[in-house]
C-alpha cells in the first residue's frame, strides 16, 4: 500500500514536510509543490532530513519551481521534477493521496 504525500508549504513556514517524513513509509512518494518546492533545494536546513528518508521517492512540481526561480541545478540529489500530468500519474500510481496542507 503506497501513498503519495503532497506537501505545499515551505519547510521554513510550517512543519508539514517534517511531519510528512515522520509518517512516510518505505515505498511511498512525496510531491513538493506550491511553496513546498523550497524543501527540494540542496544545502538548506531540511536537505539532510530529506536525504535521510530512505526508501521514499521525492518529486517537485516543475511549474512551481519555475515560478520561484529555482532551477534544476539548485535541487537536491534524487529529486525528480514532474509537471501536472506527472502529478496526476503519481496520484494514479500510488494507492492513495495524503495532503499535508
Amino acid at each position, binding site marked *: 500500500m503506497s501513498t503519495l504525500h503532497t506537501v505545499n508549504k515551505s519547510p521554513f513556514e510550517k512543519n508539514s514536510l517534517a511531519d510528512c517524513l515522520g509518517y512516510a513509509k518505505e515505498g511511498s512518494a512525496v510531491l513538493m509543490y506550491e511553496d513546498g518546492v523550497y524543501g527540494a533545494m540542496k544545502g538548506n536546513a531540511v536537505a539532510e532530513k530529506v536525504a535521510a528518508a530512505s526508501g521514499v521517492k521525492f518529486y517537485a512540481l516543475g511549474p512551481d519551481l519555475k515560478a520561484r526561480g529555482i532551477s534544476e541545478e539548485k535541487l537536491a540529489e534524487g529529486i525528480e521534477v514532474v509537471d501536472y500530468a506527472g502529478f496526476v500519474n503519481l496520484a494514479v500510481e500510488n494507492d492513495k*493521496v495524503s*495532503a499535508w*496542507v
Partner: protein
Amino acid sequence: MKFAIQVNEGPYQHQATDSAYQFAKAALDAGHEIMRVFFYHDGVNNGTNLTTPPQDDRNIVNRWSELGKAHDLDLVVCVAAAQRRGIVDEGEMQRNGKDAQNIADGFRISGLGQLIEAGIQSERLVVFGD
C-alpha cells in the same frame, strides 16, 4: 481512473485553487474522470459570479465554470460554508429571505454528504488547501 477533488481555499488569496484547476485539467487531458469537485471552507468563494478580475489576470471563477461545462463536471459548493460567506443560489435566496443570488454557472450548492460520497465513490480524493 475516477478522481474527486477538494478545494479549501478561495481565489486570488492562495495558490490552492490554481493548483487544483491545473491538476483537474491535466487529469481530464489524460483521459481520467473527475466525478466531483467539492468547494469547502473559503473554497466556496470560487463559486461566486460577482468577481471581475482585471482583464489581463486569469478569471478563476469563469475558468472553473468553463472546465465544468466542457467536461460536465459536478462543481459542488458546501452549503454551510456558503451561507457563512454569502454564496447564494435560487433556493438559498428564498429559504433565507435574501434579495439576490450569485452562484456562478455550473456550480451547485449542496451538503457535506457530497464530499463523503465523493470520497467513497472515487478512487482518489485529492485535497488542495492552505
